[in-house]
């Protein structure tokens, strides 16, 4: 049996000063229900989560107390991916036919400030200023550039593409394209990453309606198939965020494992993917994730970026809606925004940012603290 996506909804990313995070989640659910032509009382189950905006199951106070199974999911940056994975499994098992996944968030301004005890670490690690995700991503790309001959030019090109794509996306937070010089001359935040190479914590909501594929045609003429949903954690030796030490032998990142598992589930390979969303917490991670997800060899990114291969008209379009760089990162919603965008592209509804030649296979990837990755593959 297969799992179909029959409705997609988004509450725009950025800042919604007059709405709570929960209200943004509810708005996304209503949009997804409307897209599917269904109502909240049709939902048999829900999975959802947020980091800073409250318990997802409180959404029933807005959407209706229908007694459905509602499970809160919190799994760091893979929260959306994990909700989707849970829904995928619930339908695959035959227990349910129809349900919703939702992610939303509303973070305070400025960098995240995680607390050591929440991550199994002692206070000294945070007190002495070692517990910043920005530092980790900078150190990972610093080493990667050294090992694989990637230059700062590549970092600038990723951001340039992100903001160009954001300017074509009505729901994106950052709507202004930035020039190469704007990015290359922006303030250094955490060497080698500059201001316009990092995404910011933000607000927003995203929701998807999932259905047993055998029944999907009752609701829509163009269901999409969720061919794979995989979530994996780090290996011993993965170079990870919030790690006071690292093993001498560097093992594969959890992204590599999740990606392989997803391709195996879907029965296709990286060469079959027409449009992809790769976690771009910063421009360096997008570069690393191109290779970790199997779309190129380590080091090839430099030339691919120079050739425009990852642009909307290129041969491997990455983050067509501007990704995290242009949309910001409401942690709970971010992974589901990726799936939303891939669905828009596969339906051919991308407007100014539509990938040409009728893309048929989409791919989404999240990665984040403390070393967790989620991958989804969606087809027409």
């Amino acid at each position, binding site marked *: 049996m297969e799992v179909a996506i029959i409705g997609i909804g988004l509450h725009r990313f950025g800042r919604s000063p007059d709405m709570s995070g929960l209200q943004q989640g509810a708005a996304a659910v209503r949009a997804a229900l409307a897209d599917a032509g269904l109502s909240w009382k049709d939902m048999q189950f829900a999975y959802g989560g947020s980091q800073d905006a409250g318990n997802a199951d409180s959404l029933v106070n807005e959407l209706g107390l229908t007694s459905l199974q509602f499970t809160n999911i919190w799994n760091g940056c893979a929260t959306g991916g994990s909700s989707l994975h849970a829904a995928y499994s619930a339908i695959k098992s035959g227990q349910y036919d129809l349900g919703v996944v939702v992610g939303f968030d509303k973070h305070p301004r400025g960098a995240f400030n995680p607390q050591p005890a929440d991550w199994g670490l002692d206070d000294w690690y945070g007190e002495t*200023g070692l517990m910043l995700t920005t530092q980790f991503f900078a150190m990972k790309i610093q080493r990667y550039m050294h090992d694989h001959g990637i230059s700062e030019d590549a970092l600038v090109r990723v951001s340039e593409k992100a903001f160009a794509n954001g300017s074509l996306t009505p729901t994106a937070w950052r709507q202004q394209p930035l020039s190469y010089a704007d990015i290359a001359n922006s303030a250094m935040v955490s060497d080698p990453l500059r201001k316009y190479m990092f995404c910011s914590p933000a607000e927003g909501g995203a929701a998807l309606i999932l259905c047993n594929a055998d029944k999907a045609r009752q609701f829509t003429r163009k269901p999409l198939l969720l061919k794979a949903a995989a979530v994996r954690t780090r290996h*011993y030796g993965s170079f990870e965020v919030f790690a006071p030490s690292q093993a001498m032998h560097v093992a594969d990142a959890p992204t590599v494992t999740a990606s392989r598992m997803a391709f195996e589930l879907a029965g296709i390979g990286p060469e079959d993917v027409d449009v992809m969303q790769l976690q771009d917490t910063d421009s360096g991670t997008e570069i690393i994730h191109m290779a970790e997800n199997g779309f190129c060899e380590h080091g090839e990114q430099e030339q691919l970026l120079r050739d425009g291969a990852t642009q909307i008209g290129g041969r491997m379009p990455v983050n067509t809606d501007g990704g995290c760089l242009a949309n910001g990162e409401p942690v709970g919603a971010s992974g589901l925004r990726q799936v939303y965008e891939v669905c828009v592209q596969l339906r051919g509804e991308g407007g100014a940012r539509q990938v040409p030649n009728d893309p048929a296979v989409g791919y989404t990837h999240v990665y984040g603290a403390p070393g967790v990755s989620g991958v989804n593959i969606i087809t027409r």
Partner: protein
Amino acid sequence: MSEQIPIHKGLFTWPSSRPQLLGSRCKQCGETAFPAQVDCRSCSGRDTEVVELGDRGTLWTWTIQTFMPKQPYHSDETEASFRPYGVGYVEMPGGVRVEARLEPSTREQLAIGMPMQLNIVPFRTDASGNQIMTFSFSAVEEDQAWK
């Protein structure tokens, strides 16, 4: 009288004329961890021992923290007195890469592969006037490099 107190027990030998970082090594698989822990992340064994990791290493990767971190960062600095600091992973002869503050704090002073030296340094002052000590690494000075 004020004292110099380590920020956390068991991170490094202190006081000592030549302090060493402390970690743990698994008696089953030989893998090393910092800080020391009783469980092994590599083989799931529970038979580890505390070992000295050394006081010299080489820089494996680095960055520079340019803005003052929010809480839980806890130093004596204010936004006005904050000075950027380096952060890196230093490959230790004890067989593990340790994340640490670095004293060099400009990109000109930092390079992957450079030899580094452990220092135990005052980080902040507590309410009783004691100096809270932490570890950091600096570049090995030329005349010490061969020792």
